[in-house]
């Protein structure tokens, strides 16, 4: 009996579940290998076929995104996307999620997330110039939120600050839907010379394969499969997979890699991210069209006695795989030696499409590269979620206009999603690099670049912004995700920049749920439409599925799912950084103008959620053609030199836009007096509607030149004077009257209070 059992065990390696594979996938692997896979083979396949590495559920949708444009040099498919910045310069950028590791261990998880995305950038030969991040936590009232917020922010700062890369922007959002699944998305942009971009695909037969950086340890094993699995909060076993980051080593790795690249010692290079040595070696082989040998005995180990499968799956940080010409090995070693890093030959590029692993001096395993790399692709079933049947356009007359609208307005500014994130970003070094022209805390970040050693100053600069709006995406995935793209563009246009390209992080629940899959497909459609209209191709990105947790509630297992959360990172250019416009009011007495049109639709707004406790309404459609025209109009005004301040209308409505413009002035405590009459629109709708296609402006020129108004009429965009900047008071009609200094104080203290809990 017993013997038979054993035999059965052998015939089906039950570990496939542990490795996160489905039974069908397991069977498919057996078929491809023509034998039952052992743990090493299971490890390799499960990593490469994981959602994280293979994009098996999302590929068919991602392919529909626009990825070409005159400025795009390299689109999706490489470690990061590349755009042409002129004069031989290119900008390289990408965003990546590190949600699950950050939920397990928020400090290390967020730190290694930042470390990982920077490696993606410098792998391509680009020196990182700036980081941004998008963070989402549970309700600010949830007892664990202060802990997550505090640790994640420390982790992000710990890594970026030590690397010497400024963190210049991002977003922090609180919502109940993230109580059991926080989101940490990290973005990095770097600069390189166009003729000096490094790719993993360039290695040639007879090149040698080199391992550089930290030694391999037991950390993060199963990370790739973990990231692709629904989280079981009770499963402590997975907790041993925390990756620990060492930004000091990564700083050395950055300098060593750039030095080796400058000296032309590297042919091809790939960072070890998710699934470590496995994905880096197979990707390098696949993209180059060759194969390689890997000598597992040569891999530097931190922990003795690691099994081959553990070596292959380890997600130890700060490591790179590269190839070089044999004659350059010594020179390469001396560069890494200078920086105190190990640099070891671990194999050779070979003229066959296989990877041959050697272990204990013997040939251990051979894998056909195509078989491993071309994993399954699914077009999973999708279905419009039931809850959407009840999401209808708002019937505003069902809700009364609150009597205490003055208090409500004051409290809205103190909502943690609106209040200043200063206590977060002062923990990030945002001034290092001396390129940050507009620091975090305003709208888009603006950076210059230097023309080192050439005396004359360059005038060009670039702008960065990151945005997601999951509540609207939940209410309408198409509109919500289009809005994320549009909001980035608004911020960039308001500063005087021109949007150029985007990267995305698509954070969703399980793709095995048809309703999630439907949300995903709609969200991709929304990004696509907006990106096409705004001429911002998607040049890189990342998908994070399975952001859901099974929680026990009164004996029942309840799935806690995040709202669908597409996050967009956008890059824009500006020709002359001296023309950059900041969003805040500058001087008492300046007239305030509204450029654009107001609709007053409150559906899904923060005001509805916070005060009427009911936000489940369909968000208003956004007219993309109008939007593009509006931005062109604003840009032409900025280029004409007319604009002193410009800001878009978003969360919290025009009330928030005006108030923030007043209280974020770094040197003064300004306010405003606004009079606005519109018989068609209720006061609360005017104040708090969020999906407005309009900007709030002040002008440089007191004389209000005719040419300025001609611009508006040329683009056929309405412009209207609505008030004046005034020191000390925040006043709208007879309904709102607040003191600027008090509001300002509260606006800056809300997040500090959460952090100090």
């Amino acid at each position, binding site marked *: 009996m017993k013997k038979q059992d054993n035999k059965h065990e052998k015939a089906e390696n039950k570990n496939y579940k542990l490795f996160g594979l489905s039974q069908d996938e397991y069977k498919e692997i057996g078929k491809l290998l023509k034998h039952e896979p052992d743990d090493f083979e299971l490890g390799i396949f499960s990593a490469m076929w994981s959602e994280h590495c293979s994009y098996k559920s999302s590929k068919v949708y991602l392919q529909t995104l626009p990825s070409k444009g005159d400025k795009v040099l390299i689109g999706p498919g490489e470690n990061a996307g590349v755009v042409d910045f002129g004069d031989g310069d290119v900008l390289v950028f990408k965003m990546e999620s590190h949600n699950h590791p950050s939920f397990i261990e928020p400090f290390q998880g967020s730190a290694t997330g930042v470390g990982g995305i920077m490696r993606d950038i410098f792998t391509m030969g680009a020196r990182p110039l700036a980081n941004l991040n998008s963070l989402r936590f549970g309700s600010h009232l949830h007892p664990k939120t202060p802990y997550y917020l505090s640790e994640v922010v420390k982790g992000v*700062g710990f890594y970026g600050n030590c690397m010497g890369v400024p963190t210049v922007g991002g977003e922090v959002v609180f919502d109940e839907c993230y109580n059991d699944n926080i989101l940490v998305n990290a973005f990095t942009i770097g600069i390189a010379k166009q003729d000096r971009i490094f790719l993993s695909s360039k290695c040639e037969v007879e090149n040698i394969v080199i391992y550089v950086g930290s030694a391999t340890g037991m950390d993060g094993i199963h990370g790739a499969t973990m990231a692709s699995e629904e989280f079981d909060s009770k499963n402590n076993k997975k907790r041993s997979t925390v990756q620990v980051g060492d930004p*000091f080593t990564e*700083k*050395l790795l950055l300098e060593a890699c750039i030095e080796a690249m400058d000296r032309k010692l590297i042919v091809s290079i790939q960072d070890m991210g998710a699934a470590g040595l496995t994905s880096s070696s197979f990707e390098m082989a696949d993209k180059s069209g060759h194969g390689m040998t890997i000598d597992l005995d040569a891999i530097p180990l931190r922990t003795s006695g690691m099994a081959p499968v553990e070596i292959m799956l380890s997600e130890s940080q700060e490591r790179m795989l590269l190839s070089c010409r044999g004659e350059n090995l010594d020179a390469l070693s001396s560069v890494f030696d200078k920086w105190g890093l190990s640099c070891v030959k671990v194999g050779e590029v070979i003229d066959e499409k296989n990877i041959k692993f050697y272990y204990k001096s013997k040939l251990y395993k051979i894998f056909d590269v195509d078989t491993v790399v071309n994993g399954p692709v699914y077009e999973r079933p999708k279905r419009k979620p039931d809850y959407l049947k009840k999401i209808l356009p708002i019937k505003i007359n069902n809700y009364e206009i609150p009597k205490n609208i003055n208090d409500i307005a004051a409290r809205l500014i103190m909502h943690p999603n609106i209040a200043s994130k200063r206590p977060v970003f*002062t*923990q990030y070094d945002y*001034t*290092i690099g*001396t390129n940050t022209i507009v620091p975090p805390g305003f709208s888009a970040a603006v950076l210059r670049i230097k023309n080192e*050693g050439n005396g004359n100053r360059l005038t060009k600069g670039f702008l960065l912004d990151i945005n997601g709006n999951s509540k609207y995406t939940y209410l309408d995935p198409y509109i919500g995700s289009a809005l994320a793209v549009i909001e980035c563009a608004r911020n960039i246009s308001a500063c005087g920049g021109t949007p150029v390209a985007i990267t995305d992080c698509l954070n969703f629940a399980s793709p095995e749920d048809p309703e999630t899959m439907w949300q995903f497909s709609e969200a991709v459609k929304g990004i696509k439409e907006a990106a096409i209209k705004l001429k911002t191709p998607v040049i890189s990105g990342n998908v994070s599925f399975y952001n859901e947790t099974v929680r026990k509630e009164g004996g029942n297992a309840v799935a806690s799912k995040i709202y669908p959360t597409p996050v967009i990172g956008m890059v824009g250019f500006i020709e002359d950084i001296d023309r950059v416009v900041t969003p805040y009011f500058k001087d008492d007495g300046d007239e305030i103008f509204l450029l654009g049109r107001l609709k007053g639709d409150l559906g899904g707004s923060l005001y509805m959620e916070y005060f009427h406790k009911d936000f489940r309404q369909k968000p208003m459609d956004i007219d993309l053609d109008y939007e593009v025209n509006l931005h062109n109009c604003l840009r032409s005004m900025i280029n004409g030199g007319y604009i002193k301040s410009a800001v878009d209308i978003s969360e919290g409505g025009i009330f928030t836009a005006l108030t923030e413009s007043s209280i974020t002035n770094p040197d003064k405590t300004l306010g405003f007096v606004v009079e606005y009459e519109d018989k068609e629109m209720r006061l609360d709708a005017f104040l708090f509607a969020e999906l407005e296609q309009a900007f709030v402006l002040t002008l440089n020129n007191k004389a209000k030149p005719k040419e300025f108004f001609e611009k508006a009429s040329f683009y056929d965009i309405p412009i209207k004077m609505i008030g004046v900047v005034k020191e000390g008071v925040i006043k709208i009609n007879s309904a709102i009257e607040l003191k600027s200094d008090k509001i300002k104080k509260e606006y800056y203290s809300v997040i500090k209070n959460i952090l100090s809990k």
Partner: protein
Amino acid sequence: MNNNRIKAGITVFPGSNCDFDVYYVLNDIFGLNTSYIWHKDKINDMRSYDFIVIPGGFSYGDYLRSGALAARGLIMESLKDYAANGGIILGICNGFQILLEAGLLAGAMLTNNSLRFECKDVYLNVLKDDTPFTCDIKKGSILRMPIAHHDGNYFAAHDIIQDFNKNDNIIFKYCDSAGEPTEDSNPNGSLLNIAGIIGENFNIMGLMPHPERSSEKLMGSEDGGYIFKSIIKYIKGK
């Protein structure tokens, strides 16, 4: 003397990361003859440098204590020798921490009292203008510069502070925009609001704020530039 005749050195430790920024200011903005000094390089004659900057960053990851490991590096022997011969050394942020750990300046750095990294603009009151680092600034001036550090909480025992007072070693104090060294204007809990000190021979200065990040109008303040201008003026006048 032309600026390009002035020779400036910038030390580079593993983990230094403000080295490029200082280089840009000295080389590109002030036009000095600037070079990096790698921490392992044998420097035959450090005395050929008119001055040396130890820039900010996270030398050796700032592990153990900020600046501690760099202060034990081999290059410190040459630097001590350079200092003993009157060489001018400016330590910025991590460079200040290294100078303290190396014993070239008195005192020690503790973690910010917020226990957090603090990046923001601060105001500094200039207490001395008869030094190589401040000779182009008037005593009592208020400078605006950014800080960015985790361990900038200056501490020294009572007797050291007494010596400081006697010898006039405190050169910058954190203050409010009116020049008052208030508690609110102290970003890290530093004793007596100390932001920068100068050694007994007035040739070594350390400060936590970053003058190199405030040497261009584009960066929002040019006040830090006056420290470099002072050094240049002093060297030219020698």
